[in-house]
């Protein structure tokens, strides 16, 4: 009887140990992915027409792993993210914006996403 209780206790304990070990793995994967991502914000002058901003978007899309490309006309900002391994330099970003026909200003790199402007 005592042996049966011990075995059951052991199995239940083992179950909890395994469950505990599994849970951090998914959050670890997410944390790893975020750690591999660089968020980029470029202040751009000259963004006066919505459809001419399309050319800028096309040029940014050519950067490998670039995604979540957003252009805020009122703020004059371009934001996107890339994997660490494909982070462009400031000079490269300056060249891309100029080739697109605009004037680059400040360029910011961050490990966390830039806050989006909310419409009140």
């Amino acid at each position, binding site marked *: 009887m005592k042996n049966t209780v011990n075995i059951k206790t052991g199995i239940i304990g083992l179950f909890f140990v395994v469950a505990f070990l599994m849970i951090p793995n998914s959050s670890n994967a997410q944390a790893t992915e975020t750690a591999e991502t660089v968020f980029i914000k470029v*202040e751009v*002058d*000259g*963004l*006066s*027409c*919505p*459809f*001419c*901003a*399309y*050319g800028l*978007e096309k040029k940014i899309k050519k950067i490998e792993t670039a995604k979540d490309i957003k*252009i*805020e*006309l*009122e703020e*004059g900002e371009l934001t996107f993210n890339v994997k660490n391994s494909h982070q462009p330099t400031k000079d490269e970003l300056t060249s891309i914006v*100029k*080739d*697109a*026909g*605009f*004037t680059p200003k400040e360029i910011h790199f961050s490990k966390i996403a830039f806050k989006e402007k909310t419409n009140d």
Partner: protein
Amino acid sequence: MLLNLNMKKILFVLFSITFGTGVYAQGPPIFTETPILLGLDGGGIRTFGRFIVKENATVYVQPVGIPYNLGSKTQIGIIGRFININPNQIQSVSGFGDLTVFAKQQLYQKDGKGKTFRIIVKLNQVFPTGKTSNTPSIGSGSWQSQLSLITGYVTLKYGIYGQVGYNVTSNDLTDNLIYNFAFVYPLLPQKYPPNQINLNIGFNGNYKTTIKGNSLFLSSGVQWIVSKTTLFETGMQFPLIEEVTDARKTKYTFTLGTRILIF
């Protein structure tokens, strides 16, 4: 004798069409050039149908303009036109009009947050490829070279555009000075991707230096930008000044067209 006089009248209509179509006026505004060579302003194929209703004829012009950007500051392009002329009391004729090639080069650019000021120079060359054997003739029969300066101050709230140029012709057609002005006002908040309605209003002038005759039109129109790559537009022009004989006077023009970005 009467036939020759009518032919000259129709040729004059065609001459006005050649520089009245403004198919090379890409991007907002509708009837005037823009100094911005980007996006639908620069790389969009443009076509429209334009009815030019005159006292002695109704003319339909369907130009197709294909620009190509060599970088963000230089552009080349070509324009072909289909023309149908329906003169009063004479059988109508149709065909392809004169071919035009053009080149644009940006001279100056000053950008600010949500705004830009730019100046470009444009060279336009018309080749007399349209048929002149018909009555009335589809082509102008004239080599025409035009050099113009185009400027614009564009913000997210409005755009102001201006153009002045001189056109040199051959084959006894008159040289002319062109002068255009436009104001564009977006109705909706600007956002990207775009979904916008632009109101256009402006003036389009043409002073024929050889015969010293001036034409000035009031232009107005609406543009609907439906996506990053497509817009639709419509507009009308009414004469304010037209120093021509009564038979050649314009009642109005009506335009309906689209621009599609493929490059």
